[in-house]
């Protein structure tokens, strides 16, 4: 019941905040977001799951399974629950939403109640994606997420907001269609052996080899086609080079809080889905394609970092560095070892916090300077010491400073992928590690030029200290990054417990 409560809090909060008068909306939204936040922590404290939700022997925590729709041969259940992979992501989503709402207090000054209502609707969609175990419910949430994000970018975004919003919507919606066709090929291939769209049941049936031929196409071909279709569909969301082009546009135009949610939580939907669908349902195909996927991952890491290196806009730098970081996640997934899969999941959390921290810091800087161009400012450290400190902390976290979450995530991934047994795993890992050097390069360069040196600002604004409510989300994120970096086991144990069963078969 607690998961339904979690979703209900978000949805009710969204409606209530939407109709609140504008002046009460910021506080109202913050209050409303505390309900799901607390609920997610209660869920975490009461977490009693073990194993992988999709595989045999997996014990779900907080599971609900009731029949939702039953029509002729189709049965659809309301099946939700969390395991060690989804639980941390649920906590991440609720934490980020609350903090993102705080980051909105300063920059969002018009149509506030609508803005905050959409943020809470977005949270509901995100949480739904992470907790749904029936494909149909999952797809509903997956699509629901698009709408508020589209509106957030399109209404409150920068100068090219309309273009960016439409590009975001069209890219990800087409990707969903491709992914949907791929998944449906599997469902039809299974025929009568699975009568529902229950994802664990489908996964187990596929892994048990119950996939039959469809219209004369052999099961092996169906699996390959489905894998490719789903991979392409999810890769857009992650995003993986070369289908990443919507991301910089969306990020640059999006208002700060939307960027925090987009980088921090929305991108994780893509990697989460890859982990659940491609790598849990079709591990054998994943193994066949492993070198190719690893190549894509490494290209994302290096190319994303190179693109970041070439940017002059702070937000674009952070946006492109997300592509690079998500490349590490893909590398961890394809490694298919305990550390690889676990590290990939852990990296989702750490990147969620770190990219949220960086986007929020850039947002605070922009609020006071009204420019994001590296060349337009320098020496901000004297005028905004706290914000500078947070930005520096976030950057170092990104570069992989030990005792911060980014280090642990990348360490796990490299350890896992180095030991992976697909061809050339060591080479791929070594090349990917080089990406960190580039990350250090562009962050150090950007920090040095903007934060340190002589004070100079090309715009007509005076730089002063940021408001407390701007700093709080940054500080909380820094603390969380350090907590996760020093005590990764608060989540990593749970994660490895859930990814362990995946390694039993297939590879």
């Amino acid at each position, binding site marked *: 019941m607690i998961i339904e409560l979690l979703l209900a809090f978000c949805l009710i909060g969204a409606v209530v905040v939407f109709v609140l008068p504008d002046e009460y909306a910021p506080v109202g939204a913050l209050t409303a977001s505390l309900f799901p936040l607390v609920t997610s922590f209660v869920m975490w404290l009461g977490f009693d799951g073990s194993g992988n939700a999709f595989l045999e022997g997996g014990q779900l925590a907080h599971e609900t399974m009731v029949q939702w*729709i039953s*029509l*002729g041969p189709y049965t659809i259940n309301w099946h939700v629950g969390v395991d060690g992979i989804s639980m941390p992501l649920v906590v991440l989503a609720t934490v980020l939403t609350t903090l993102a709402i705080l980051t909105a207090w300063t920059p969002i000054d018009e*149509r506030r109640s609508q803005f905050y209502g959409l943020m809470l609707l977005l949270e509901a969609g995100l949480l739904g994606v992470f907790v749904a175990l029936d494909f149909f419910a999952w797809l*509903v949430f997956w*699509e629901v997420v698009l*709408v508020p994000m589209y509106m957030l970018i399109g209404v409150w975004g920068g100068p090219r907001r309309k273009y960016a919003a439409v590009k975001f919507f069209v890219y990800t*919606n087409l990707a969903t269609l491709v992914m949907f066709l791929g998944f449906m090929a599997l469902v039809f291939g299974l025929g009568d052996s699975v009568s529902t769209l229950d994802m664990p049941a489908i996964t187990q049936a596929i892994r048990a080899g119950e996939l039959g031929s469809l219209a004369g196409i052999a099961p092996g071909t169906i699996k390959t086609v489905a894998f490719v279709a789903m991979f392409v569909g999810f890769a857009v969301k992650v995003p993986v080079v070369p289908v990443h082009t919507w991301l910089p546009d969306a990020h640059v135009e999006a208002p700060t809080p939307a960027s925090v949610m987009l980088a921090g939580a929305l991108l994780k939907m893509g990697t989460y889905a890859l982990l659940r669908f491609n790598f849990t349902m079709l591990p054998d195909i994943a193994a066949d394609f492993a070198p190719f996927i690893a190549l894509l991952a490494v290209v994302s890491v290096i190319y994303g970092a190179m693109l970041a290196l070439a940017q002059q806009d702070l937000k674009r730098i952070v946006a492109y560095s997300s592509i690079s970081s998500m490349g590490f996640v893909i590398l961890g997934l394809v490694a298919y070892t305990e550390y690889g899969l676990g590290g990939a999941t852990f990296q989702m959390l750490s990147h969620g916090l770190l990219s949220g921290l960086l986007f929020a810091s850039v947002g605070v800087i922009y609020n006071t300077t009204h420019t994001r161009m590296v060349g337009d400012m320098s020496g901000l450290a004297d005028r905004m010491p706290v914000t500078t400190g947070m930005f520096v902390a976030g950057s170092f976290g990104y570069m992989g400073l030990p005792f911060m979450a980014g280090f642990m995530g990348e360490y796990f991934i490299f350890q896992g992928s180095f030991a992976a047994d697909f061809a050339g795993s060591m080479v791929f890992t070594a090349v990917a590690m080089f990406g960190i050097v580039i990350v250090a390069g562009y962050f150090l360069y950007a920090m040095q030029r903007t934060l340190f040196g002589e004070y100079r600002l090309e715009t007509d604004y005076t730089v002063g200290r940021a408001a407390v409510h701007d700093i709080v989300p940054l500080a909380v994120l820094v603390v969380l990054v350090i907590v996760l970096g020093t005590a990764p086991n608060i989540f990593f144990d749970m994660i490895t417990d859930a990814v362990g069963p995946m390694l039993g078969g297939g590879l």
Partner: protein
Amino acid sequence: MAPLPDWTAAAPAILLGLTAIALLIIDSISPRSKNRNLLAGTTLVGTLAALAAAVGLLVTGTGTNGGVAIYGGQIVVDGMSLFFTIIFTSVAALVTLASYDYLAGENEQAEYYALVMLATTGMAMMASAGSLALVFVSFELLSLPSYALVAFLKDNRGSVEASLKYLLVGALSSAILLYGISLVYGVTGGLSFETIAANIQNSGLTGMLGIGVLMVLGGFAFKTASVPFHFWAPEAYEGAPGPISAFLSSASKAAGFVVAFRVFTVAFGLDIVSSVDWVLAFQVLAIVTMTLGNFAAATQDNVKRMLAYSSVGQAGYVLIGLAALGGGQDALVLGMSMTHLLVYGFMNTGAFLFIALAEHWDIGRTFADYNGLGSQAPIACAAMSVFMLSLAGIPLGGGFLSKYFLFGAAVGAGFWWLAAIAIVNSVLSLYYYLRVVRAMWFEESNGDRTIEGYPLGLYTAVIAAAVVTVLLIPAFNFVADPAVDAAAALF
């Protein structure tokens, strides 16, 4: 308790008819009354009573076991007729609520509401018709008030012109329908569906029967605004008063479909008529209707006209219910078509009522006129966004589920190509539905538009439609299940 007499099964239609008479009596007692509380109130009470009666009958199981046949089989009350009566009365209730504000200050309010009620009575009778004779009579009972309602804004040239076009095309298609009926009568020697079904096999006059069936089909294509009899729809929907556009595009369309469903499953059932391949005709109709409707909608600059074409496109999806028969999933396919009509009844009515709201505010009709409306009327615009996204098949409303299962049922019946074309159309339709959302929320408002007041009735209707559209997601099974059962009873 003694069982109720059989005629009580027709209670919804009777209640609607009585409401119409009550309104006419009120009008004769105090002519030209502008007491909108009394008039709209009477209509609303009558409509809701009919709705409650239909729901009650459906829940208590009147529709099961082949239904209740009364008046010598002329009227058949079964699951399908009750299901559709629920659609008609729900739409009529929303339209009445909206008209409360829309008609404020108009002179002939009693006539307006009486005509709406008469048309709704016609629809309810169409849903229960057991013979082609009653089909034709109730068809006209629906059509004649509709012509008058479209022309209700007598001083508005667009309204009158639209009504004239509607009347001319309507008269032509009535003639075609009637001629088709006479041909079928000539071949089978009966008008009741059962007689037709019984005699149709023994007849050797395949050619004449085929022409008759096609002509009957043409008559329904007119009511459902399917290609090639859709020309009247954009004109009539655009020219008519907003609530009437909602009424025609949702309820009247559904009425056309219910007769088509019944005639083509009971009288000309696939298992009976092997000589005339009407499924092929419906497949062609479905594909052409959805594609043409979508492409025409995409090129419009007028929101109401866009919605008019979109409703043509949606009719194309519903036609899948007849076009995908014979694939072993007949009940499911037809049931999903019915469910889509019900969901469509709320989301499309809501969308047209939002247009009525915009007309009430006098803010113009093009996409550009809607620019920035979201900051002035956020709640109504949020509701409109729900309608648009739900019509496009984004799961913010029940439209996603009904489309998903409709297309899924078509795939399951082996008509995957039909579903594929429908899905492509559905994805394309996102373009023009999102244009409304974009205009309302993303664009800056141009000029100084002022919105006076937030009319209670229109707002209630729009928000009620939005709430039902959203609630149909969790409650989908409650409407889909009776629909499939009702459809199954026909085969």
